[in-house]
């Protein structure tokens, strides 16, 4: 115990000085909180293992890399095997925490209630902590059309194969003044099971109303051409004129695909970090206390809120059996939730947590023991 304290203290001192140095050379010292309160950026020695959602892989690696810069003695591993595997490994006690595209399920599925099983492993309730928000872009390839707006009904009919050409009157009706070509629409979907598909179909179901008859699922229920992973669908759209898909923002940006504005009824909303933040802020929290599971309102008509997104969680024990693990988890997650890291995520295609949510997240992380 004594050793641990000493280690923490040394770590803090080291980080403090590094963070100060960082502030000195950086101009945007608007949030100098990193150097302030204890427990803000604490270093640990050793290894922290997490596993799960591939949707947050890049964000996680970014956070791990910056953390490692400040704490050279700490290794944070993330194995992006998918949300399901991550949760399974967490329940089996193989990893320190899990990353997941959806909060732990409270209903029985395949004989397991995830929430209960995780609590049993932890010996305390497991918490879902929202950490990374990944907007899903409806990406298209239409040379000459830079500005495309879609309403949920129109999007649903496109992705269901009911609207087959880009100059369909239904698309034209929501895109006044845009010259639409007569190109055939080619829908690309994820052939592997994916949280992106699940969230996108949730959106179509919630906002598209009668136009979308399928239930939300990880496997694509409607029509189109299936491609492997996000890289596959974005490549498909990029090489096919008239192609359209749903894909994480970063892939749409990297491949220079057109990104449709979404009009849920409150006006066309462009996909930016800010508009996504607004939607996250509007999400209702339905967990108890520090269990921050969010229910997104996909049909939100709030002006300026981009409604298609997935929130990925870190799933942690509220009380770790091993105090050292708790310290590690806290130290790293605090860093990941910090404004510096969150703002940096926008560059790689994620949206930062809005400040009100970030506050709750920080409170929850502090309460881990």
């Amino acid at each position: 115990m004594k050793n641990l304290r000493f280690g923490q203290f040394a770590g803090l001192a080291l980080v403090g000085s590094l963070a100060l140095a960082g502030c000195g050379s950086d101009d945007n010292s608007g949030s100098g909180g990193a150097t302030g309160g204890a427990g803000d950026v604490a270093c640990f020695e050793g290894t922290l293992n997490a596993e799960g959602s591939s949707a947050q892989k890049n964000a996680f690696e970014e956070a791990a890399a910056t953390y490692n810069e400040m704490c050279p003695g700490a290794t944070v591993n993330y194995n992006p095997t998918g949300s399901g595997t991550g949760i399974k490994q967490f329940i089996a006690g193989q990893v320190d925490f899990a990353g997941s595209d959806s909060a732990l399920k409270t209903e029985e599925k395949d004989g397991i209630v995830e929430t209960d099983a995780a609590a049993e492993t932890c010996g305390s309730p497991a918490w879902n902590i929202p950490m990374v928000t990944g907007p899903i872009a409806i990406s298209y390839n239409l040379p000459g059309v830079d500005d495309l707006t879609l309403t949920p009904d129109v999007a649903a009919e496109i992705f269901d194969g009911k609207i087959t050409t880009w100059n369909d009157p239904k698309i034209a009706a929501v895109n006044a003044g845009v010259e639409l070509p007569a190109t055939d629409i080619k829908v690309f979907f994820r052939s592997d099971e994916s949280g992106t598909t699940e969230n996108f179909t949730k959106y179509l179901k919630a906002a598209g109303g009668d136009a979308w008859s399928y239930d939300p699922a990880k496997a694509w229920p409607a029509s189109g051409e299936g491609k492997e992973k996000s890289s596959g669908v974005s490549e498909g759209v990029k090489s096919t004129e008239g192609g359209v898909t749903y894909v994480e923002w970063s892939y749409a940006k990297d491949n220079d695909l057109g990104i449709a504005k979404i009009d849920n009824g409150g006006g066309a909303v462009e996909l930016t970090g800010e508009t996504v933040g607004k939607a996250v802020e509007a999400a209702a929290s339905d967990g108890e206390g520090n269990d921050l599971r969010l229910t997104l309102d996909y049909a939100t008509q709030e002006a300026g809120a981009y409604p298609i997104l997935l929130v990925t969680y870190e799933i942690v024990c509220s009380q770790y059996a091993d105090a050292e693990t708790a310290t590690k988890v806290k130290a790293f997650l605090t860093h990941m939730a910090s404004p510096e890291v969150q703002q940096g995520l926008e560059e790689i295609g994620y949206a930062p947590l809005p400040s009100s949510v970030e506050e709750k997240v920080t409170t929850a992380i502090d309460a881990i023991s």
Partner: protein
Amino acid sequence: MTGRSTVDEDPRHPLGGDRASTGRLGDRIFGGLATTSGILIVVLVTLVGVFLLWQAVPSLLKNEANFLLSREWSPSGANPRFGILELAWGTLITSVIAMIIAVPLGVAVALFITQYAPPWLSKPAASTIDLLAAVPSIVYGFWGLNIAGQYFQPVLSGIDGALGWLPVFEDQGTSAKSTLAFAGMILAIMILPIVTAISREVFAQVPTTHKEGALALGATRWEMIRVAVLPYGKPGVISAAMLGLGRALGETLAVLILLSTLSANADWSFSIFNGGSTFASRIAQGAGEFDTPQKTGAYIAAGLVLFVVTFVVNATARIVIDRRKAFTE
């Protein structure tokens, strides 16, 4: 290069030790190692089969669809429904296309190298073909997707224009580079070195007496190849084709990258210009989300079918080769 004993029927008993040297240490070690290796590989394959069966059976028992004849694939949940019809079709058609292209081409290349090419050319040509086998399959996949694929669209349109009235050649609107036909072509390139290398070996072993005999009887070079080289090499070519087929059936990454999968509600089509899945590509797609034993079992059941099919293909090849042997020479 006189490995004739592999093909010739030798009436004598095979050579055996006379037990005079069995007591020596070196003999015992070498003999032991060889025997262990032989047993090990048999045990290993058996264990793989048993493992697949073990994992697959519980899921198969819960399956509510016809495993062999259903096109559905929803292996999770309380009422799993999954069948392999679509996978079997995708696997079969891509492999057949690959064979149709690769076997004649491979045989022709092997004949060129062994019968036509001058010695200074045959060695480098052989090594170049072998080099094809050294390219990782994922590279073929990306090459097909990003470079070769764009040139297939006109080919597809041409065939569709001329023969589109045949269901097999009907354009389904799938991007050309993501069709079963194009995946089969890439597979053909991948199995070409296997077919070529083995065919080359057997063609090189054709006894000079056979060839000279044919030529002395007034045969042209083509006739000599037809009456002397090809009949002699037939079992070798068959086994080359079967080995290639084995690889084509199981190829995963290139197919996974290239093929567009069909949506759940797509109509059944026999067109080779359609998307689809093979056993291996479907398993690779699902591998990220094997979250329950039941779901894993469904994929493993598909793997089991592939295992059995490959086994049958290889066994058939063995039988064919053994029967053909009797007629040579």
